[in-house]
């Protein structure tokens, strides 16, 4: 399952500085990371440490101020032109004038996928996120969590090889989140996609990932990377295994270090 020679994402001394009237913000400093094809990598770190920034850099929504960044061996701009990734934003970002179904159809429409299969594909995605009964509703008729699931369905609809997900389950209740964690994991295993997944949840990160990247803020940096060697299939028992707790503790320690809380312990 681990990748082939060409990494899905490659960062070398990547820097992102936002210039502003009140001074510059170093959102990302000298980040180095390689994500292999088919990996599931979680980014975890305190608020404002540059997780979203890093995803947006990969998505070519912003341009780095220094360093090297390749997506699928190509420049992020080219990757974007080739529609190499699907992006799930931190908030649902639905088009409020389109029904749920039409929101999911949107990427299929603009990418001119074969008309015959569009509807079926969109319904299939809605079923995947448990919203097949809501196809005709408008976004405002859905709860925040349901809206976020629509946006996940939309990102999956055109079957990109790379998924960039910015706290997709942040707005969900614990049970739904665990259910969707399971679904995402299954989907990832079945399709062999590469996933870059931003989260604030330690157990979510450990449960889902092949590796967890721990970041610190001011300036945004990669503090450390934890390899998750939990066996597959991962299920409820996985969450209760001693190894799971060991790994979670490891991540938590790295996070605390980043927060500068060590002295208090």
């Amino acid at each position, binding site marked *: 399952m681990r990748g082939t020679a060409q990494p899905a994402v490659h960062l070398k001394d990547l820097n992102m500085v936002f210039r502003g009237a009140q001074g510059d913000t170093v959102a990302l400093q000298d980040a180095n990371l390689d994500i292999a094809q088919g990996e599931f990598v979680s980014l975890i770190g305190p608020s404002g440490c540059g997780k979203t920034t890093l995803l947006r850099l990969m998505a070519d*929504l912003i341009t780095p101020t220094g360093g090297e960044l390749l997506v699928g061996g190509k420049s992020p701009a080219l990757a974007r*032109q080739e*529609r190499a*990734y699907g992006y799930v934003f931190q*908030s649902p*970002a639905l088009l*409020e004038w389109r029904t749920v179904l039409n929101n999911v159809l949107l990427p299929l429409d*603009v990418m001119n996928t074969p008309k015959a299969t569009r509807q079926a594909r969109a319904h299939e995605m809605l079923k995947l996120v448990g919203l097949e009964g809501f196809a005709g509703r408008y976004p405002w008729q859905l709860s925040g969590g349901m809206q976020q699931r629509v946006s996940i369905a939309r990102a999956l609809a055109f079957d990109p090889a790379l998924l960039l997900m910015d706290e997709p389950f942040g707005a969900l209740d614990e049970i739904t989140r665990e259910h969707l964690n399971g679904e995402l994991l299954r989907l990832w295993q079945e399709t062999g996609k590469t996933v870059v997944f931003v989260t604030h949840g330690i157990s979510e990160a450990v449960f889902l990932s092949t590796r967890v990247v721990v970041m610190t803020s001011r300036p945004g940096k990669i503090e450390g990377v934890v390899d998750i060697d939990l066996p597959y299939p991962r299920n409820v028992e996985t969450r209760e295994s001693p190894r799971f707790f060991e790994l979670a503790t490891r991540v938590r320690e790295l996070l605390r270090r980043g927060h500068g809380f060590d002295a208090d312990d």
Partner: protein
Amino acid sequence: MASRTVALGRGRAGGLPGLGWLALALGLGLLLAAVWNVWNFPLDGVPPGRKGLSLTLIVLGLASGIYGLAILARRMTGVVPALLAALLTLVAVEGLLRAYGVPPGLIPTPTRVATALYNSRTVLLGDARVTFVQEALLGYLAGVGMGILVALAAVRFPFLERGALPYAGLFASIPIVALAPVIVKAFGLEWPSKAIIVAITVFFPVVVNVVRGLQSASPLLLDLMQTYAVTPAASFRLVRVPSALPFLFNALKIGSTLALIGAIVGEFFGTTGQGLGFRIQIEAGRFNLDIVWAAIVIASVLGIAFYGVISWLEMRFTSWHASRRQPG
């Protein structure tokens, strides 16, 4: 539900629609009797006894009618209660004007207005055609069209927006009475000058609103379009245009009321012999206030209908928008 319970609690019969209709009918009957009692007297020749009787009947009739309406309004929605209220008011006004012998050259009674509406219908419809179709509607369409084009240009070329948009707001605040004489002098007395006045008054709100609407598009949605690598034109069509629709409709509604006012006021500043504004002005000078009011009635009906059509379109095209959502 709760209000119904309260209504029932107030009196056993209080919530029965039958009683509502009864009270309403009684009220209307009393009011009609009040009118009949002082019908066809010379203005200064209403006998004091009859005047007193009619005034009493009007007070009683209104009380009964309003009581009936209040009961009915709890069960009915839509325009019916409003129409019934209007009917009560009109009959009461008729009675009051006749009881006090108010000269028709000052305030015409509703029946006189209705009669004038019927007798002068050909002339008034001709006037309405000129004022509404030629001046207001054509001007409106031209103003909206131009407004949208300029808004598109302003969004496309930011220097236009920065340089010209603030002045658009300024221009928009020029009162129509200052604008009208200049336009009429420049473009002549026929209907096109009035259409131009309308176009100008409609133009500015459209520009300002459409620019704001196009800019109101969520940056996140524009980012989403970026991730799909669509052309700027497609992104504009898929995100900016729908985002601007509620703003456009807002301007369209403002414009629909401005259009008729603009056309009518424009006619006050010089016109050939047709149009509702012309008719109002010329007949007011002849103290034919029944025709003046008939013209006002037609203008109001057209204005309301125009606004209604725009609102219906708005409902149809932007039902998704927050301000349009039906509760539940």
